[in-house]
């Protein structure tokens, strides 16, 4: 997890990288425009968003019951449920399943939940070969990097970068042919398919996966075993309630009516069927989620992982995914990562926001991200994680403003100090990326 200095350092490098700045600006702008177009062409987007929010809130409120229903349905269809509490436990469960199966090659379909439990590292440490099959994720894996956007992991890569990662000429046809060839070899030879789940339907025990490439479909058709890593909050009570969420996800993530391949998997291959996995395992991960349900952060569990908030965030659009953490980024990441790990370990993230509110406006389920970021900042202060200078400054300030004299004195000082502040101590650091407003010559209360 990054530290305060690291966020700034990484961000500073990205800011200097002209090529990265271009890629981020155009990439996020296109995704944003796609969403706005799709929202404008929907019948009644506000009603749909409200319905989505209501479904998510009601589901989280009653999550234990839905999890039990889901587990029973999966078991009835011949699947195996593994409930885990920590990230390490979840990764260990997947490694165990793969070992028991005598697996050597694991094919993966892009999944943020597996990033969260650092599954690739765990599988590799156990001697297994892991290959990502989403093109963007595969390119990032070849480069030894983490995904930088939850929907478009290789958002910063150009054709040349991609060609270099694959060791071919920078020609799109050539790139695609090479990637197709290599990844189809993985579909054919992998022993185990590991996927996440965009949603899981409690009443039927179905896993819902969406991809535009179709990689999850081939991956769950050919290998003999399928392991699903499911964040416990991905549940939807009924199939009927899945429909509006699929519309919200597709329109908000990529500006489509429906993602190209939207697939529901219910249990392993059935008698007489020719392909599909013989075994289906679902590893349910908690990793700090259940502890959030009764807190003011519960609404964060409503997130459907569409990435819309990243595409409009002035901080993400400049700094990219790298600076946040190696898992989630942008406004949703700035809230979720500190909540799922320890706040102290990612104390810089709640500050990686201008609190402008663009994220909430873009969020299909209206999560009040800036409010949650402010709450996290408050928690940091309460736990004594905030810097001493900051705490002293605010203590003095609030004391001074409790008297008329103090108020007058500080506002006078502020007028004088405006020119001096950027020259000394903490004022210099603070003013590096900010500008103080010009103060009026006369205070409002002095004007008659």
């Amino acid at each position, binding site marked *: 997890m990054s530290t305060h200095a690291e966020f700034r350092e990484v961000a500073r490098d990205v800011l200097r990288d002209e090529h990265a700045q271009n*890629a981020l600006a*155009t*990439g996020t702008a*296109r*995704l944003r425009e796609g969403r706005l177009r799709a929202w404008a062409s929907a019948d009644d987007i506000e009603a749909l968003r409200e319905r989505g929010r209501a479904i998510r809130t009601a589901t989280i409120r009653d999550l234990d019951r839905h999890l039990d229903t889901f587990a029973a349905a999966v078991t009835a269809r011949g699947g195996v449920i593994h409930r885990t509490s920590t990230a390490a436990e979840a990764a260990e469960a997947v490694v165990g399943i793969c070992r028991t199966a005598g697996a050597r090659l694991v094919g993966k379909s892009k999944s943020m939940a597996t990033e969260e439990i650092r599954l690739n590292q765990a599988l590799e440490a156990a001697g297994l070969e892991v290959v990502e099959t*989403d*093109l963007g994720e595969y*390119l990032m894996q070849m480069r030894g990097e983490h995904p930088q956007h939850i929907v*478009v*992991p*290789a958002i910063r*890569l*150009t*054709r040349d970068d*991609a060609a270099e990662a694959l060791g071919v000429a920078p020609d*799109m046809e050539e*790139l*695609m042919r090479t*990637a*197709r060839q290599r*990844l*189809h070899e993985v579909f054919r030879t992998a022993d185990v398919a590991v996927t996440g789940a965009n949603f899981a339907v409690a*009443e*039927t025990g179905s896993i819902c996966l969406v991809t*535009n*490439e*179709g*990689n999850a*479909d*081939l991956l*769950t*058709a*050919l290998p003999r075993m399928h392991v699903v890593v499911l964040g416990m909050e991905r549940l939807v009570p*009924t*199939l*009927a309630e*899945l*429909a509006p969420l*699929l*519309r919200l996800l597709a329109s908000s993530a*990529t500006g*489509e*009516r*429906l*993602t*190209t*391949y*939207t*697939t*529901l*998997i*219910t249990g*392993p*291959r*059935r008698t*007489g*069927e*020719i*392909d*599909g996995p013989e075994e289906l395992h679902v590893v349910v991960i908690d990793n700090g989620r259940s502890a959030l349900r009764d807190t003011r952060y519960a609404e964060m569990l409503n997130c459907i992982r569409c990435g819309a908030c990243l595409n409009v965030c002035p901080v993400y659009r400049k700094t990219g995914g790298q600076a946040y953490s190696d898992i989630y980024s942008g406004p949703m990441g700035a809230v979720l990562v500190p909540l799922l790990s320890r706040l102290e370990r990612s104390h810089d993230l709640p500050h990686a926001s201008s609190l402008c509110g663009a994220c909430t406006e873009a969020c299909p389920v209206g999560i009040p991200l800036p409010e949650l970021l402010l709450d996290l900042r408050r928690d940091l202060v309460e736990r004594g994680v905030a810097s001493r200078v900051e705490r002293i400054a605010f203590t003095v300030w609030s004391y001074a403003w409790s008297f008329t004299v103090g108020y007058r004195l500080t506002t006078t000082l502020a007028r004088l100090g405006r020119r001096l502040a950027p020259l000394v101590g903490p004022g210099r650091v603070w003013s590096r990326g900010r500008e103080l407003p010009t103060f009026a010559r006369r205070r409002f209360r002095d004007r008659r």
Partner: protein
Amino acid sequence: MKALFTERARAAGCSVEEDAAAELEADYGIAETGSLVLTPSPTRTRASWLEPEVLGAALPEERILPDLESLFAVLVEDMPSAVAIVTGPSRTKDIEQTLVVGLHGPREIRVCLRCREAPRS
């Protein structure tokens, strides 16, 4: 229903014809999204709608359902082991946000609404 399906399937990048060659028959179509719905069976693999470079799919008009909700209402009583809702050809925009079709699945999908030839599956 047929008109809406045709419009939306074309918007998603499929061609929709009255008569064309078909490798397989879709279980359903969805008008709202222009999607084909495909499920595996003892005579049909999951790979069958992903492996051909050009996929010809027969879709009898009367199997076109209005929306996702109506599809789920039909399926919920007896969920197949896999239900693929396919909206247009396989595509990616992972490199420079440039649209490329056919990376993993078909690069072209031809939907045939009044297929006279018997589909092979």
